[in-house]
């Protein structure tokens, strides 16, 4: 984890510098009659962030923070698998929303998660995968009147039909 601690501190330091540079697009000094410029607050906060990353790196080099003393890797095989399978699943879910609508994406995500990650029975998987989108549809579209993304045009007839039920 020691290396991860140092690398993260480095990445966060670069991020802080980027934020300082970006904040400086607005005025960061004191403007007479207006108070501090619009960039001052984020600029100085980012500067504090930069100092913090320096301290974090220093502590890591001296082996003073628990992660920098740990011999374990940041992500072992299980951790990598978790991130890839679970995180990748959520990524796929969100990526599918614009194609097959929020409800369709939810359906595929639940099948993936329950059947392939959870190894549950098809009956339980399909029960959840079908019921959840229906419940969410009626909750959001009918009850709360919050329209969710409807995906590509090929799904239009489906939603037109569903809308006739709720409106």
């Amino acid at each position, binding site marked *: 984890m020691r290396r991860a601690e140092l690398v993260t501190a480095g990445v966060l330091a670069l991020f802080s510098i980027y934020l300082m540079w970006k904040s400086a697009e607005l005025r960061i000094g004191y403007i007479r009659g207006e108070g501090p410029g619009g960039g001052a607050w984020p600029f100085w906060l980012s500067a504090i962030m930069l100092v913090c990353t320096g301290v974090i790196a220093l502590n890591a080099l001296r082996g003073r923070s628990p992660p920098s003393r740990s011999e374990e890797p940041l992500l072992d095989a299980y951790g990598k698998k978790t991130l890839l399978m679970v995180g990748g699943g959520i*990524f796929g879910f969100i990526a599918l929303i614009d194609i097959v609508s929020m409800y369709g994406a939810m359906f595929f995500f639940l099948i993936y998660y329950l059947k392939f990650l959870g190894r549950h029975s098809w009956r339980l998987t399909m029960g959840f995968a079908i019921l959840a989108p229906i419940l969410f549809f009626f909750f959001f579209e009918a009850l709360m009147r919050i329209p969710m993304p409807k995906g590509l045009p090929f799904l239009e007839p489906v939603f037109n039909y569903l809308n006739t039920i709720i409106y």
Partner: protein
Amino acid sequence: MIEILGLLGNGVWDAIQPLNLVLIVVGVTLGLFIGAMPGLGSVNGVAILLPITFLVPSGSAIIFLAAIYYGAMYGGAISSITLGIPGASTAVATTFDGRPLAMQGKARLALVVAALASFVGGTVANVLFTGFAPLLATVALNFGPPEIFARMLLAFATFVGLGGDDIAKTVFSICVGLVLATVGFDQISGAPRLIFGDIPGFLRGISFLVLAIGVYGIGEMLWTIDSTRGKITTTEAEMSVKGAVEDAKEGTRRGWKGTTIGSFLGFFVGILPAAGATPGSLMAYGVTKLVSKNPEEFGRGHPGGVAAPEAANNSASTGSMLPMLTLGIPGSPTTAILLGGMVIWGLTPGPRLFVDQPDFVWGLIGSFYVSNLFALIVNLSFIPLFIWMLRMPFTILASMIFVLSVVGGYAATRDMHDVWLMLGFGFAAFMLRKLDYPLAPAVLAIVLGPIAEPTLRQSLLLSSGDPSIFFTRPVAGPITIIALVLIFLPLFKFLWERLRGTGSSQPV
């Protein structure tokens, strides 16, 4: 006093109106479940469910969320006792004696003591709250920008001075939250600010919910899946009315001291922004053990060791509402999200609420009493059901939470840009969490940022750029000084230890 009782009466009446009562019962039940599930705490529940409360009026929505908060404090004990792993960080101390009791076949005793102590803790805190809140709000009414900024500084300072995490990482977390809050338009000049990559989605700013759901719905869940890879064993608890009554008697006899200590200590620790329910319950456990005649029994299954932390975490959750409602400073990550919700509902948190929205405030306070009672009833009647649900495979729960997070993230702003951003925050939160970066300060900061920045700028405008304005005003001065002392406390400690030559391995 009579006036307060009248207002409280109206509040309780408000809370038992059909819609609110249903929301309270659903809220505490959900909260009990959320609290009982390892890896999920009140903050996850409130963050993920906030977007769906837009359906009901703001007064009812906050009652619902507060009920979840309440229920979660009760629920944490269930898994601490029957699984031996805390259902939420607030119930860590409950495992010390709750688990040994369960292993001795006294799970029911532990569960009954936990529920009763929670109820007493909640009630004591509610009474203290009702007494203190209007008083504090009246004092806070005269606050100007320097006072408001000073108290924001104090909120962050408590994280640094009392948080117990790596200081540099805590400060980093606070600053990152504050900077993320500045994305969008500069509130004063109206100029676009920090529009990363000129992506138009950033023009609307970053909603605190996007960060909160990313951190608590996705990041924490990934972390939980990664860290709880082992199998978990549940202990059974036979529930019967007669047995529970006997346990209640024994629990009262052996646990009253812990309950009393927890109730009062929890409340006052809960008020401190960084502290909240987790340190409150740990402190209550420690003090109860310290004053006990048989401290050696603690850790081996003493009912007082269950009563103290449980009374304290309930009491602290009410305590953390005090600064949120009266000063507009959240006392815990959960109240930070409630505060953000209030802003979305068009309310301005702070002392003016007591003047401008008395129905909202007193309805909420009234609901504390009602929620506390229902949490006790639901908890005691459904303990076997909760234990059964704890055996549910985690993949079912996790998939539902991810679905709720994505849907909730979209519903909050109705923009896919924010859903992607939420996922990004989730991954970042997972990695940072693994490296011991505290993330609650960032969530608190993104909520407080939009209040902190303008007050700082207005104050400096008032003083023509002279920062001494924060030190010379009668109220702002002491607050600023306390805040600075807290911020530099770890540094003083470090230097002091160096001077005495004892050395310290604590990072500064």
